[in-house]
């Protein structure tokens, strides 16, 4: 800063024509690119999103290498679907809750609030980041699952359509709840507050332990949360039709899955609208 370069200034005494607002979609696109760049440069974030489900998949499939009940399915096939479902939650709920809490604490949100950036562009940017990172993660898991863990890739477009809507609803529901959940994280070290409930959900939703082997009471409780339905939905896409008899209801329950996930979308959206704040706790 040796010299101050004069920057052209429009004198307020002679105002020019009011410049048009920047279209929000253009800003949203720029935010999406910025978010993705930030995401992939943050090592902790990338490791949490990508390697954790992969490591768990490898561990569980190796340790419990038997078959599931009388179905003749390998346990690893079921784990792979569970990891796909978990991946939806980690890349949306976990990533956003932790990231937005950090942004609230380090002043990023407050800085944005002082600019003419439309809030919708911020949220759109987050959605783009979550979509890109979760799709990458799903691709890695599906490829690994198919190559090493007996994950069956369907030729039926209907299965992939199911995958898409469950994935989209799940990502939306978990992203919105993650954004709302970020308000619960005060100060540093929000990790446990986010990761612990996720761990619990994984155990009660049939990711690690086959759902039907869980006590009925736990099955009922976990049915209120999205992960159970995401797991079931992924099983419906990647496991043979015969497996449906092993589901608690004796079928895939796609209608109910859509209903529960949609309920979480609505609840998450309402919570976000009511609680989302651009300021940190110390800012009042």
């Amino acid at each position, binding site marked *: *800063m*040796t010299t*101050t*370069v*004069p*920057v*052209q*200034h*429009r*004198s*307020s*005494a002679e105002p*020019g024509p*009011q*410049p*048009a*607002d*920047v279209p929000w979609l*253009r*800003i949203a696109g*720029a935010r999406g690119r*910025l978010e993705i*760049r*930030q995401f992939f*440069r*943050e090592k902790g974030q990338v490791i949490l999103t990508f390697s954790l489900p992969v490591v768990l998949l490898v561990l569980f499939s190796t340790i419990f290498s038997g078959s599931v009940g009388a179905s003749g399915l390998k346990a690893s096939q079921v784990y792979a679907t569970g990891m796909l479902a978990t991946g939806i939650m980690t890349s949306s709920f976990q990533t956003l809750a932790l990231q937005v809490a950090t*942004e609230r604490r*380090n*002043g*990023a949100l*407050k*800085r944005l*609030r*002082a*600019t*003419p*950036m*439309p809030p919708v562009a911020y949220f759109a940017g987050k959605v783009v980041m979550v979509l890109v990172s979760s799709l990458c993660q799903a691709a890695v898991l599906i490829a690994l699952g198919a190559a090493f863990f007996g994950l069956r890739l369907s030729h039926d477009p209907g299965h992939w359509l199911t995958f898409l809507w469950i994935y989209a609803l799940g990502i939306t529901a978990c992203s919105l709840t993650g954004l709302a959940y970020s308000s619960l994280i005060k100060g540093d070290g929000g990790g446990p507050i986010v990761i612990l409930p996720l761990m619990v959900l994984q155990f009660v939703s049939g990711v690690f332990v086959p759902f039907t082997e869980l006590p009925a009471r736990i099955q009922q409780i976990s049915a209120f949360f999205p992960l159970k339905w995401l797991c079931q939905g992924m099983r419906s896409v990647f496991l043979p039709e015969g497996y449906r008899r092993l589901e608690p209801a004796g079928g895939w329950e796609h209608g109910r899955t859509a209903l529960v996930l949609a309920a979480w979308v609505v609840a998450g959206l309402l919570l976000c609208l009511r609680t989302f704040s*651009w*300021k940190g706790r110390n*800012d*009042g």
Partner: protein
Amino acid sequence: MADPAIRVRGLRKQYGGTVAVASVDLDVERGEIFALLGPNGAGKTTTTEILEGFRDRDAGEAAVLGEDPGRAGSRWRARIGVVLQESKDLPELTVRDIVHHFALYYPDARDPEEVVEAVGLTAKQHMRAAQLSGGQRRRLDVALGIIGRPELLFLDEPTTGFDPEVRRRFWELIAGLRAEGTTILLTTHYLDEAEALADRVGVISAGRVVEVSTPERLGGRHLAPAEIRWVGPNGPQRLRTPEPTRALTELASSFEGEIPELTVTRPSLEDVYLSMIGEAV
């Protein structure tokens, strides 16, 4: 003459039972640097945050660039710039990326390259924000504050933690913005900073503005007795007088040539500020 940049009457804000801002009146003219001084907890930050649109007020009128900051929308935000106290965001992005990105938010942004140059970060433009020193990071904050070509810039404690040389250069940058017509509301703890930069200063204490004046005249500074010091035949001498010119003329006649180690001082801005704060507390 256009409206004042900021016009505030009877501004009030309380948190629970604590009154943060009791009743603040304030006028900031277009094109001036106005420094808001005051101890911690006096209501400086609350006042500026209300004016920046971050916070609601309980009572009073506020017009910032002619609009109510509590209701103003994105058009208004495009006309102001805000440099907040210490920020640590965007650590993984480079200076260049960040400045270019923020330029996109504004309908009439400055050229990002020019702004990076103006804050003296051209040599660091490929560094990530996390790698910048405190002073460089602060200059990046200023770059983002001015990228939208604001008519009014809020600067909150901009030089905390700067070494003296960097501080001096930072002041040059701010003075340069004024020269281009930017109105600046500066809050600071440093009285030398207010003295170097501000056209006018306002002292806020216990939630009220206790005085507004130029740095030279605050607290009747220019009327206070001056102190003359010199070294006479009997050692160091000191004289307090309301008429320093006459005293000096007399003194000069008793010396041949230079008066040794002569200084004439009035109370410093710090002296008058401290006495004002002391009275108000």
